[in-house]
């Protein structure tokens, strides 16, 4: 019996560069939306594009952007961290406790210096991250469940520190030598608020880790195909542990910034922040399945959400409509993301300039 080869259908020769450009625009859509929103609000609300408002805006954006940077790490491995809001609250409360109550040794309260207070607060946050990482990579608990559990644990811990009360007056006292705390969230450097500088620093570190180190590549690999990563010799548990530590670090820093801005630590701080962070990450084009995305995207995503809420407030849109619009934007972003993957898959053979069959 003889069989005849069926010749494969001819692919139209499209200029590779034009395809690449089209894909790039589709990829950078979050940035396009951000610019469009800024232009729109500047046009509709004259007070929007003023130095004063932009300063307030960047402060807001910095908070959710820092959380989103940490969240990106966990989402890139195919995980999620629901505990960030609680960790932020807990870290603020730990700092508040140390600054206002001190440590009682033999009936006398000792007040540690501000830097020690900050370090201890961050360490407590990292402890929650460590617990998350251990639960997920060693005990095999699904990330959603593990961090849902630590969401409650950390929030309970925050409430327990003060028995549910607020620690006011974090400005400290000169006699105790701990008056520097408010500067963390309130000072300006070269015209930019401190939280924005912290955000930029964390962003730079995150980009370097993800783009320039083997660890970063391993994070993408674990998210892209965990079993393949394991077989290639990557220590998957370690990689996952790192991402939850990174996320907890960012969350703790956010908690400290908020406490510093308010000069008070409130145990309910950070409630539902995790949802904003996830929204920012998803808007930035990071796939919740893992393996695809970037911190740059998350930063832009946080920008979109920040600009959207501030702009809508300035336009006098009701709070209820704001929620509806925010929801629509998030859902639309993910729908477009799916479209992009399909379009990209379709154009891939064109980029190769040959049939995928290769030898056929």
């Amino acid at each position, binding site marked *: 019996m003889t069989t005849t080869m069926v010749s494969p259908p001819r692919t139209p020769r499209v200029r590779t560069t034009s395809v690449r450009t089209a894909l790039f625009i589709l990829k950078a859509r979050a940035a396009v939306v951000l610019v469009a929103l800024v232009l729109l609000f500047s046009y509709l609300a004259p007070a929007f594009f003023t130095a004063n408002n932009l300063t307030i805006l960047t402060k807001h954006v910095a908070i959710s952007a820092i959380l989103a940077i940490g969240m990106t790490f966990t989402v890139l491995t195919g995980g999620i961290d629901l505990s960030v809001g609680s960790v932020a609250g807990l870290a603020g409360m730990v700092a508040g406790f140390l600054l206002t109550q001190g440590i009682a040794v033999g009936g006398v309260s000792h007040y540690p210096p501000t830097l020690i207070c900050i370090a201890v607060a961050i360490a407590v946050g990292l402890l929650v991250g460590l617990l998350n990482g251990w639960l997920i990579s060693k005990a095999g608990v699904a990330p959603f469940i593990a961090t849902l559990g630590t969401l409650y644990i950390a929030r309970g811990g925050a409430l327990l520190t003060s028995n549910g009360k607020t620690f006011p007056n974090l400005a400290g006292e000169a006699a105790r030598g701990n008056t520097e705390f408010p500067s963390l969230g309130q000072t300006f450097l070269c015209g930019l608020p401190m939280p924005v500088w912290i955000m930029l620093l964390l962003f730079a570190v995150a980009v370097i880790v993800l783009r320039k180190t083997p660890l970063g590549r391993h994070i993408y690999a674990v998210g892209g195909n965990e*079993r393949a990563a394991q077989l290639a010799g990557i220590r998957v548990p370690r990689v996952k542990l790192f991402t939850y530590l990174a996320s907890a670090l960012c969350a703790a820093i956010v908690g400290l910034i908020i406490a510093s801005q308010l000069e008070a630590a409130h145990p309910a701080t950070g409630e539902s922040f995790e949802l904003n962070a996830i929204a920012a990450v998803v808007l930035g084009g990071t796939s919740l399945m893992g393996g695809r995305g970037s911190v740059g995207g998350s930063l832009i995503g946080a920008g979109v959400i920040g600009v959207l809420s501030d702009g809508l407030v300035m336009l006098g849109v009701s709070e209820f409509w704001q929620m509806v619009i925010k929801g629509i934007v998030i859902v639309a972003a993910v729908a477009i993301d799916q479209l992009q993957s399909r379009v990209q898959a379709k154009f891939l053979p064109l980029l190769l300039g040959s049939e995928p069959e290769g030898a056929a």
Partner: protein
Amino acid sequence: MSLMRNDIILEARAVTRRYPGTIALKAVDFSVYRNQVNVLIGENGAGKSTLMRILAGVEAPDEGELLLEGAPIALASPREAVQHGISIVHQELSVFSNLDLADNIFAGREEVRVGVVVDRKREEERSLDALRRLRKPMNVRHQAGHLSLGSRQLVELARTLDQRTKILILDEPTSALSNAEAQALFNVIDDLKRSGVTIIYISHRLNELLHLGDRFTVLRSGRVVGEAPRSDVTRQWIVERMSGRDAADRVTEPSVVVEELPLLRVERLTIATSGDEQAERAMVRDVSLSVRAGEILGIYGLLGAGRTELLECIAGLTARTSGAIFLRDVLLQLKSAADGVKAGIHLVPEDRQRDGLIPHLTIRENIALAAARAFFIERKKETAATRRLAKELSVAAPDLELPVTALSGGNQQKVLIARCLMCSPSLLLLDEPTRGVDVGAKADIYGILRKLAKQGLGILFASSEIEETQALADRVLVLCQGRITANLDRTHMTDEALFAAASPSAPTTPRTYPGAALA
């Protein structure tokens, strides 16, 4: 084709099916003869399963058509195929172990009263009826989870019988059965044939095929390469067509110079699945072998022989139950694949898509995945190293910055080999080194592995393809049901010897031929 057209109940005409990177079927013509056992044979990746999925409505062909009783039909779903009287019993049984037999037999097509209430009584009666026809009346209220594999298969068959199946597809039905269970199945097949059912039968086991089959079709690399009635078919005929050449035509490669000191030594290795203490059901039993630097050792075995389990254990991915593994006379205590990589043992897995590639990363990143150890990636060095490897392994890609998914199967496989080489390994393990790879790339990969062995790398590969085993191995161990049943050197790796040793009925004492190094 002297038979009348009327004898053909189902026909596939010029069916072509493409997957990203490969063509699974190329203009395949396949005729199914009424009331006969139609045997389909071919090595792994020949396209058998794809063809069956098309006949059962699971997949649609890219080109070509299906004719039932001479009239063209389109099967959009398995449900439509069932409505046309075509049923399939898959290789992996799809029995719900938490449901009872009657529920299983009627899953997805429950008998109802008043439109909503399940008619248990009717279901149970009809289930029992179907099981009686299979000569195995079981209690239909028993949970399916308690059944043996053979009985589970009967439950699936009962489901198809109750659907008044005219054409029944059996995909490797005996691969998991004991000999007694297999014999019972053959009796059932005879009964079914007598009651007017047409059977399409897929298996690797020549003995049972020659015993059961009426019509034979051989597939190789997605094409039909032979078709004949039972009277014209011999073992020789099948083997020649499957491997694509005369049994006498042998590939002779100069044997390579090998060091005497073994690189890898495996002693009395037993791997049992977790919680299963019985050695009888162990995946790998009492296996000893050694690989020297510069040597290519093949492990040949059929589906379920324990090939993959053996390689994964040596790579550190799974734990051993007993036995010892030495690398250069040092006892290995690997706790993970990462430990194995650190020791210089790399595995190229059987399933590229599932276990090998990271889809969103570029070709360069996939190659360099495991290599970078410093704190920062040295991009220039890495680009140069991956370029050199890609060139050495003739990876056909215009740009290493493209996603790895853009490559064909053969080139993806080269990428995975390059990933291992980037870490300068001492032992390379390959599970089905050329599965789903086109012919040209196959030859490339064999050449690459030969060259690597000459450079002093130890290579251990597992394969279920005779042709591949013969083309690549300096020496081959045949694995059957977890045990080594033969140790053959190049001059003794005949099709017959490999087949005989790999078949479960073969004697269990290892046969060693003169001149073959001891395992």
